[in-house]
């Protein structure tokens, strides 16, 4: 094998448009890598001069896969700016919608976006249905569809589909690649569950529909939620609606505990080598979320806030996203220009102009020494960070939280691997499953909290005292955040004369998929690919495994705002 460059474009089974170029040495090991976001929409430019109360809807359309997360960050930013504390019911309903998104998004990620990197569809055709049923029963004793007849039907469906000659989304993939290690029966079980999860995901989404009117893209409201609560009304959140939600939560817990987690651990147990690849940066960040006493009290967050550096789990550092010295974005390798002499800027002062300097399309390759992405490079105190499930689980674990320690320790024990194995591609996939377990559990707890609060006589869902823009300061700034399924999401808004003067979003996939910075530090995707051996560079399944372990979302990641030359004079920052 000679040194070569492997290009994967489009990277499929993700949201948006991502291109990966990997440079291999003579042994087929990745020596250098480039992550390029190849789309840009300019939504923050579009937000300028609009009514801040409507910003959530524009922002929500940043992404329809992680629907709701940008809406949530946006209403929190505006509420922070104009000084609104939302009622407890609204906080809890938002938490329920947030957790619903976690469970739905993470299950879809496992089965529909990454499973086919580990599960060989063609091998499943040779499985013995009786042995598959035995395996399924051993892996998950409480999942009812584990009979020989069931797996015979699935196998028949699969075989006849394959023999139809029209393979649709499964055509031309990497079936038979030496990197696939599952026995035929495990493959058949996973394919059956791919279809089960596809049927189920539309159910859990109904929680968004009940509180927000539709999914994707449910409705939010600055000041609370629009879904009034009235136990005596047939036209509000009432007993029938709450019962509906409760049933969906119970069903979701069954899917997470009896389908997703057992499948995840079963698949992982066949790929121990992937606990040594894909670790990457070793720096992790979480803004924290799931407030129990309002968003202004991070000490009560179920997802704790913090930073871990250099894989050191002995200490968790503090992060303050509103501190101009901590989070700053660079554009050395991005298709933007900064004013002369400026290297990095905090989102409050976001000054950016798009300037494409890449090759004229159609092109064969990008230049790793030049600018090569529509994503900027955000850094925390100059360091590249990984955000997302692995970051959250490690920070929860390192913070000494019992719930995190319990799920992590149990999974490590089952897989018979040490905690250090979490710093890997497989560790990232496992962390996503473990936090889904927590999320499904918290869903019930939040539901109970909502019922208890209503029972105590509180039906309020919105605070409208500052709904009218006339009640706002002439100028104010706000920061809104959430821990989206893919990681830390921050929205920074500057409101002037009741209109949006400046809007910035720094999103999870911008952190993870970022290009190099001015010091040549790789972003998280790039760093995670280094050192990975590839068996057959023409069929890049190894690259897909690691990139998919982050669950890329490129529509989110590419953002920019136009020049905002004005210096802020007297500004209210709450």
């Amino acid at each position, binding site marked *: 094998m000679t040194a070569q460059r492997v290009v994967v474009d*489009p990277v499929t089974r993700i949201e948006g448009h991502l291109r990966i170029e990997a440079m291999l040495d003579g042994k087929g090991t990745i020596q250098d890598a480039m992550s390029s976001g190849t789309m840009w929409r300019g939504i923050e430019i579009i937000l300028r001069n609009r009514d801040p109360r409507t910003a959530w809807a524009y922002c929500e*359309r940043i992404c*329809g896969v992680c*629907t709701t997360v940008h809406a949530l960050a946006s209403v929190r930013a505006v509420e922070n700016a104009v000084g609104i504390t939302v009622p407890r019911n609204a906080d809890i309903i938002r938490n329920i919608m947030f957790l619903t998104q976690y469970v739905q998004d993470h299950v879809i990620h496992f089965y529909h976006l990454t499973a086919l990197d580990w599960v060989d569809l063609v091998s499943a055709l040779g499985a013995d249905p009786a042995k598959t049923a035995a395996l399924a029963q051993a892996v998950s004793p409480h999942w009812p569809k584990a009979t020989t007849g069931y797996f015979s039907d699935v196998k028949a469906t699969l075989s006849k589909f394959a023999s139809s000659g029209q393979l649709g989304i499964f055509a031309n993939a990497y079936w038979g690649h030496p990197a696939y290690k599952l026995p035929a029966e495990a493959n058949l079980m996973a394919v059956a569950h791919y*279809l089960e999860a596809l049927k189920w995901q539309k159910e859990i989404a109904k929680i968004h529909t009940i509180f927000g009117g539709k999914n*994707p893209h449910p409705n939010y409201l600055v000041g609370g939620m629009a879904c009034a609560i009235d136990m005596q009304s047939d036209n509000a959140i009432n007993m029938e609606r709450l019962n509906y939600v409760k049933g969906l939560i119970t069903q979701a817990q069954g899917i997470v505990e009896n389908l997703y987690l057992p499948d995840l651990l079963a698949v992982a147990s066949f790929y121990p080598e992937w606990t040594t690849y894909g670790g990457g940066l070793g720096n992790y960040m979480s803004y924290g979320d799931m407030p129990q006493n309002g968003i202004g009290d991070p000490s009560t967050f179920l997802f704790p806030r913090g930073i871990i550096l250099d894989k050191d789990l002995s200490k968790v550092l503090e992060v303050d996203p509103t501190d101009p010295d901590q989070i700053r974005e660079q554009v050395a390798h991005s298709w933007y220009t900064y004013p002369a002499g400026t290297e990095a800027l905090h989102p409050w002062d976001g000054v950016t102009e798009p300037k494409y300097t890449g090759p004229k399309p159609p092109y064969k390759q990008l230049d790793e020494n030049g600018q090569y992405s529509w994503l900027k490079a955000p850094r925390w105190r100059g360091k590249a960070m990984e955000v997302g499930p692995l970051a959250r689980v490690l920070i929860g674990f390192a913070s000494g939280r019992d719930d995190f320690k319990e799920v992590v320790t149990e999974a490590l024990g089952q897989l018979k691997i040490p905690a250090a194995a979490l710093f890997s591609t497989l560790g990232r996939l496992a962390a996503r499953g473990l936090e889904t377990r927590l999320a499904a559990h918290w869903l019930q707890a939040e539901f109970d909290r909502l019922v208890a609060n209503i029972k105590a006589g509180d039906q309020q869902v919105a605070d409208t005292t500052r709904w009218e823009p006339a009640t706002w300061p002439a100028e104010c700034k706000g920061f809104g955040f959430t821990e989206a399924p893919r990681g830390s999401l921050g929205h920074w808004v500057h409101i002037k004369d009741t209109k949006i003067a400046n809007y910035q979003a720094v999103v999870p996939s911008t952190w993870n998929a970022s290009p190099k910075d001015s010091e040549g530090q790789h972003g998280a995707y790039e760093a995670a690919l280094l050192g990975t051996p590839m068996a057959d560079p023409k069929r890049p399944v190894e690259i897909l495994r690691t990139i998919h372990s982050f669950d890329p979302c490129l529509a989110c990641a590419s953002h920019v705002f136009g020049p905002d030359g004005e210096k802020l004079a007297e500004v209210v920052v709450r």
Partner: protein
Amino acid sequence: MSSSGHPKTTYDVLRAHGVDRRKFLKFCTLTAAAMGLDVSLVPKVVEAMETKPRIPVIWLHGLECTCCSESFIRSSHPIAQDVILNMISLDYDDTLQAAAGEQVEEIRRKVMKEHPGEYVLAVEGNAPTNDGGVYCTVGGDTFLNVLRETAEHAKFVVAWGSCASNGCVQSAYPNPTGAKPVHELIHGKPIVNVPGCPPIAEVMTGVLTYVLTFGRLPELDSFHRPKMFYAQRIHDKCYRRAYFDAGQFVEEWDDDGARKGWCLYKMGCRGPTTYNSCSTFKWNNGVSYPIGSGHGCIGCSENNFWDNSPFYDRLTSIPVPGIEATPDGVGETLAIAAGVGVAAHFASFMVKKGLDRSRGRDAESDE
């Protein structure tokens, strides 16, 4: 595995899956019901499923947020699995495709070459046209080129969602990338616009199954939208319409009217100017729709809805009263920021309905 070989009909595939004739007929009846077809048309559905091979579909993604794909897989009747495995051959789709990179581009070229004039091009998102289209590239080429190239030999084009139909959020002022909807870029091809951000799941699968069943496009209005799903305003079939007619409105979020489920018109609801099936089908298998959960409609299936006045501003003009109004009759619907239309509308409307005029004045006095 390759995608060559003789394509099988939907019935062939179902039969091969162990579905007997009885179950197959039931499946066809349900499909027909889902499309709102009369029972007398079931034999037509049966014939289509028995004789037609699965149509190859190339589903491209441009500048978008993937909410259309997400909505599509939420479909309850038919479910996504049936569409993908039994009804169409989804040969190219960045979001669900197992293969990546060169292998998927190879499939796209192969379908274009082997099935010219036969495949359906489904487009999610739109194309940026500024600066040579560099704001969205796929496989090293601009999405604009990929779209044009793929459309050339397509049988017809389905423009999913508001991005592909109207431009949606990235084409809102000042449209920094010059994003344009499909019908402004592709000419000489039949185009079906299926607007909404996203469209309702069953509207998406309904459009596809209609084409499979009848072998032709559904009847379209002058905006290329299927009349069967976009002929009426949300307002006209809204279950809260009676409160509008009675002059009972939510005046403030979370007020007593909100708890009783009164009309959201004064909170900016765009139901009166929005053509879509939300108030009939509802969302996520009939669970609710925006108005049903207390927030006004934001008009997401209407052209240029992001740049019409802020969606909490009350509509001051409601084009034409009455359930019989169709988009073609009304012309392009716009939420006009300032005007006197609504007062006149209320006056004439109240007379028409013969309702208590004092309630009518109540509504007018707030204008």
